[in-house]
């Protein structure tokens, strides 16, 4: 077998294992879904009335933010899962096997992509139940969700690096939550950036979660779609490139 076919086959095996494990610890899956559902309900019914978004019903504004938020918090799971495998000694076993080095990481990211796909689908269902619609058609929504999942993959690679560095599930959680909280809540995920003070706006318009929700909204509600989508893809591509390289490097240098 060539190195590439070994890498593909091993990634598939590790992905299968991770997905299986995911469904056998449904608590994590339920937690990943319930939290964004609560956010939908809170912002749709509790806070939404107080948030004014010019020219658009708030639920249309809200759902792209929720899609982004659910994968952002889901990405922390990548670090938690990987560091748990490190603590249990499984990664040492993997390093002693004649298997592809990158498959351990790629298998984790791929399984987490599958989990995100599920969570995002559930969120879309919840959105439709509370009055969200797609004025520009189903393809526009699917394109937006595609962007969300691409971004989630890039974030997963970032959290692979964090998981490998901290090697402790609790620490990974403690490290990831504040980062994601800051990124999500300094973006326009739930409130328009224009309602923020100037200094915060300056931060908001220059960060990846904001670029993602802008692109989603441009596709779903309408707007400067081409520009916003490219900007989001640039962020996604940049994060992906940097953290695939960093993560693989950390992993292959273990034990030196």
């Amino acid at each position, binding site marked *: 077998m060539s190195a590439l076919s070994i890498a593909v086959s091993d990634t598939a095996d590790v992905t299968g294992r991770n997905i299986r494990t995911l469904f056998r610890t449904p608590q994590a899956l339920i937690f990943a879904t319930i939290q964004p559902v609560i956010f939908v309900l809170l912002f749709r019914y509790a806070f939404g009335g107080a948030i004014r978004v010019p020219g658009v019903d708030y639920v249309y504004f809200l759902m792209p933010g929720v899609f982004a938020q659910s994968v952002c918090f889901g990405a922390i799971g990548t670090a938690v899962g990987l560091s748990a495998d490190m603590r249990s000694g*499984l990664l040492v076993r993997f390093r002693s096997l*004649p298997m592809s080095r990158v498959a351990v990481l790629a298998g984790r990211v791929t399984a987490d992509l599958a989990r995100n796909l599920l969570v995002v689908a559930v969120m879309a269902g919840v959105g439709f139940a509370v009055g969200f619609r797609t004025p520009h058609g189903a393809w526009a929504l699917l394109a937006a969700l595609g962007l969300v999942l691409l971004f989630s993959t890039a974030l997963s690679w970032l959290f692979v690096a964090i998981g490998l560095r901290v090697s402790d599930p609790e620490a990974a959680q403690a490290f990831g939550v504040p980062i994601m909280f800051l990124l999500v809540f300094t973006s326009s995920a739930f409130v328009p950036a224009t309602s923020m003070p100037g200094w915060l706006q300056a931060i908001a318009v220059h960060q990846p979660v904001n670029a993602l929700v802008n692109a989603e909204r441009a596709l779903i509600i309408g707007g400067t779609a081409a520009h916003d989508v490219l900007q989001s893809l640039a962020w996604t591509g940049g994060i992906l490139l940097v953290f695939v390289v960093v993560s693989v490097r950390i992993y292959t240098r273990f034990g030196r």
Partner: protein
Amino acid sequence: MNDPAIEADTLRKAYGTITALDGLSFQVPAGSVLGLLGPNGSGKTTAVSILSTTLRPDAGRAIVCGLDAVADAPAVRQLIGLAGQFAAVDANLTGRENLMLIARLSRVGRRHASGRAAELLDQFGLMPAADRLVRTYSGGMRRRLDVAAALLHHPRVLFLDEPTTGLDPESRIVLWDSIAGLVRDGTTLLLTTQYLEEADALADNIVIIAAGRMVDTGTPSQLKSRLGAVMFTLGFAGEPEAVRACRVLAAAGQPAERTGSHVSMRSAAGSGAIAQVLRVLDGQVPDPVTVTVREPTLDDVFLALTGSGITAGGMAA
């Protein structure tokens, strides 16, 4: 046939300022069992990690089946099996699923994987629990599964790092039996342990390490015979008598060690030596209350070499 299957050549490894290995060298002939013995922190796991390609040495060479564990790591990985100190199996998979996963990743073909997994489940007495999640397994069952996972691809060289630490005596014996079976099939085995009894039961040769260095090596019987054929202990009524007995014996050219009210001696001359010692002491100190005679254990060897026992558990029989 007598080429070493494993060769550690002046291995050095430091973690920051802590020296884990300080020029460790040893060889394991193909088809034999080496017991690597030492207290916690002596460098056993570091040595195993380097030889099993999961850690790079700072200096020195690690050779497995003629291949360099650093430069030819991918080739070495096809020849070795490793079961570490912690049972590295996935608690959320069944026993069978764990073995199937590791089999696939060990490049056992899809067609052979399930047969091989079933064979090992059977061999390690795990067949009745094969389709249960590992999180329902006992500690002993997890360890057995862990060792089974290291054997899927018929490794020529097997590394077992403290395979029975923390196991109850019964699980330990089950695992010993399985290990002894492997050795009969010609697998070269490097076994680290804190249990002298374990090394005594399984190993052809023993390397004793302390602070990352070899302090002695030999077969279990060589190591024991260096201490003399018998060890005997005289128990006195109190410490003052024991102290006096030591002094009298030393004056007669027969050094002895004292622990509390007990005085121990080694002798190559067998039990005849006891009579001589008792004659020396006769009239000088009150007669001992107890006299015990036994063969030296590896724990005695370790004590003599390093001045301290291995662990309290090391004496457990």
